[in-house]
């Protein structure tokens, strides 16, 4: 009996494998839900360039743009017009997931309205202050903020409910300050927030590690902690994590891709397989690094579960901080 089952399973596996080989995108496309040059553009370039240099595509992948609401327009568009289009990968980020968690992509569209397939890479939050700030560790910073939460201004590239705000709120919460007490100023994107920090209009910037590449050497800013589970490699190896310093503040910025909700298993497995191959390919990993990201090797069903878990976690966070009821 057992033996038979195994053969059946093998046969089924073979069948899907053969099917998977049967799917081949005719016009592979990466939809970047932003204007050219934005973060999603870079995400798409990781697959379009990375897959090309890893020889994973027969036809070159086109990048198309569909800006609007951190991916809301693309999410709605795919769900109404191209539900079963196996050719179109759509880029997303944790910012999109956070909006889905808050129901901002539409009342009926939650995390189950897409098939999450693979990752471009991850980035982590970072606590950044001016180089001449009086604090050298996260503990010193937190002590100062605790003493008078209204004295220092936090600022980052998004409003209440955005990832950047979430990072600030998690940081405050982990240090025992009510997030609602902090002075928080939203900017349009990380660039403006960095400028505001340099100009001393804000004093604390919970930004991203990736955008600080090269900025550290210039000696105008310093990074007090990375909000990663463990220390990073390379340029930022010397910077301790928040956890090491005793604060449970972690924020992973995930950048990845989804397919339409009704895309066939064949197409889904094809793309998941391509991602698996890419994760083992030096040329692809090189592309990921060049775009300031850290490889994140997960694909297919496992990735789908991971993303849905993340959305669940974010939903809890949002409820906890009073963003949604």
């Amino acid at each position, binding site marked *: 009996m057992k033996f038979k089952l195994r053969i059946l399973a093998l046969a089924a596996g073979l069948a899907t494998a053969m099917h998977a080989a049967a799917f081949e995108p005719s016009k592979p496309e990466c939809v970047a839900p932003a204007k050219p040059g934005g973060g999603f553009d870079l995400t798409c370039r990781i697959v379009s360039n990375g897959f090309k240099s890893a020889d994973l595509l027969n036809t070159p992948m086109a990048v198309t743009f569909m800006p609007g609401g951190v991916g809301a327009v693309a999410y709605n568009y795919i769900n109404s017009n191209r539900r079963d289009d196996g050719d179109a990968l759509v880029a997303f980020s944790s910012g999109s997931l956070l909006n889905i968690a808050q129901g901002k992509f539409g009342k009926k569209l939650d995390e189950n309205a897409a098939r999450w397939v693979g990752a471009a890479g991850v980035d982590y939050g970072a606590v950044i202050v001016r180089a001449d700030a009086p604090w050298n560790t996260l503990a010193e910073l937190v002590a100062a903020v605790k003493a008078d939460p209204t004295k220092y201004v936090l600022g980052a590239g998004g409003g209440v409910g955005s990832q950047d705000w979430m990072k600030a709120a998690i940081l405050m919460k982990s240090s025992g300050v009510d997030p609602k007490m902090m002075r928080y100023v939203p900017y349009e994107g990380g660039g403006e927030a960095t400028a505001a920090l340099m100009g001393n209009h804000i004093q604390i910037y919970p930004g991203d590690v990736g955008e600080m590449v090269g*900025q550290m050497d210039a000696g105008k800013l310093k990074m007090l902690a990375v909000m990663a589970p463990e220390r990073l490699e390379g340029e930022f190896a010397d910077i301790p994590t928040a956890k090491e310093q005793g604060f449970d503040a972690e924020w992973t910025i995930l950048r990845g891709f989804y397919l339409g909700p009704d895309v066939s298993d064949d197409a889904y497995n094809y793309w998941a397989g391509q991602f698996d191959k890419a994760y083992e390919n030096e040329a692809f990993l090189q592309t990921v690094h060049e775009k300031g990201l850290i490889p994140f090797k997960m694909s297919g069903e496992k990735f789908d579960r991971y993303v849905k878990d993340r959305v669940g976690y974010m939903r809890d966070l949002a409820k906890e901080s009073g963003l949604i009821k």
Partner: protein
Amino acid sequence: MDVFSHLATGFSVAFLPLNLLLVLLGCFIGTLIGSLPGIGPINGVAILLPLAYALGLPPESALILLAGVYYGAEYGGRISSILLNVPGDAGAIMTTLDGYPLSRKGEGGRALALSAISSFAGSMGALLMMVICAPILSQFAVQFGPSEYVWLMVFAFTCLATMVGSRPAKTIIGVLIGLVLATIGIDSGSGVLRFTMGIPNFFDGVDFLVVVIGMFAISEIFVLLESWARNDLGVRPLGKSFVTVADLLAVKWVVFRSTVMGFLIGVLPGTGASIASAVAYGTEKRFAEGKNEHFGEGDIRGLAAPEASNNASAVGAMVPMLTLGIPGSGTTAILLGALMMFNITPGPLLFEQRPDIAWGLIASMFVGNIALLVMNLPMIGLFVRLLSIRQAYLVPVIAMLTFVGIYSIHGDSFDLFFMVLLGVVGFLLRKLHFSLAPVILGLVLGEVLEVNLRRALSISGGDWSVLLDGPITYVMAIATVVAIVAPSLMRSIKMRKLLAKANEVED
């Protein structure tokens, strides 16, 4: 001098045959793209970016090409503004105000030549300022905080007040409509959806270009339809006019002031060509008051000011990008992305680590601007011929270009319908003697004003005194007060002089 040796390095890069070719190519494509309504510098740079990458150009060459497209497009935007009353891109809106009336009078050639020279002067002046004081300027840019932005916007609004024509109520309503449009979308502060009516296309706000093209280009098609029905289209006078030395002398200070203003506004992250040209236009109108001023009816000062200013701001926007790694405009954000693709991190260290790139780019901009002028002046005759094309052929082309341009922003038909709706609104407003420029300016300025006012008050915890904090705010507050008071003061002085004269005569 340090600067000269750096510039020499730069020119040695810019004069390499490949780079010379690329700068010419970039400027040419840029002018072309800029002159098409609805397709602006952002499209141009975005189109060529993957191409430059695929061709395997070295980073400095790629940047030279892309930057050429950027300021070339800023240069080309004026052509359809002047000839067709359809702004080629967002920075060219103010150019329609006096450029189009000039071409209606048969002085299209004069307008094109004058604006080409003003643009050239604006770019060159801005480049010189950039070379001499880029490091100081990047400091200035970061010192400019929320309170300073609030004052800049208030100043811009007071300049706008000069556009109040015979009916102030109508101008103000126009501005208010623009301001209301600006509030649509996700509120950047609180994340609340405002007036989106559940349409996800509105989440990021109303796209600026859709409003510009809808209100100007689509409504212009309706205007043409009406004129055709009235049978008063006629043949517009072509004229062989060209710019005269007297014209140039008459605008030399206008161009100088507009260049400085445009450059400084361009340097600030968050304000670009459209705000720069509006402020320059408004200020010059103030200056011209009582001096045989006929702004809005084809005054060459009203043409020179926005053109010098928007080109200067395109150069200014490069300063924070190169020195701080912070984009000063949407297009420089793409240029920044391009640099990252080539593994170059712009920022404070760029000038030290890769002077060939930074100075090569600057030097190539000198070359490119001369090339643009040389390329543009002889082509003016050709451009003016556009006017002799029959409406039966011209209108379908305008319609096609606007639709393609708007569709290419989001790849969604929704924008097309919205654009047509705005075109109808724009047409009706024009028929009721509303000026459309205030609507657009309300849209541009409104967001910057609201966001920064709220930022300033969040920083201070609700204390309004934050608005008068630091030397820049004082200067700007004084400038605003002067802009409000000066014209009436001038008028009363003049009146007194007249009275005095009258008295003398009586004596």
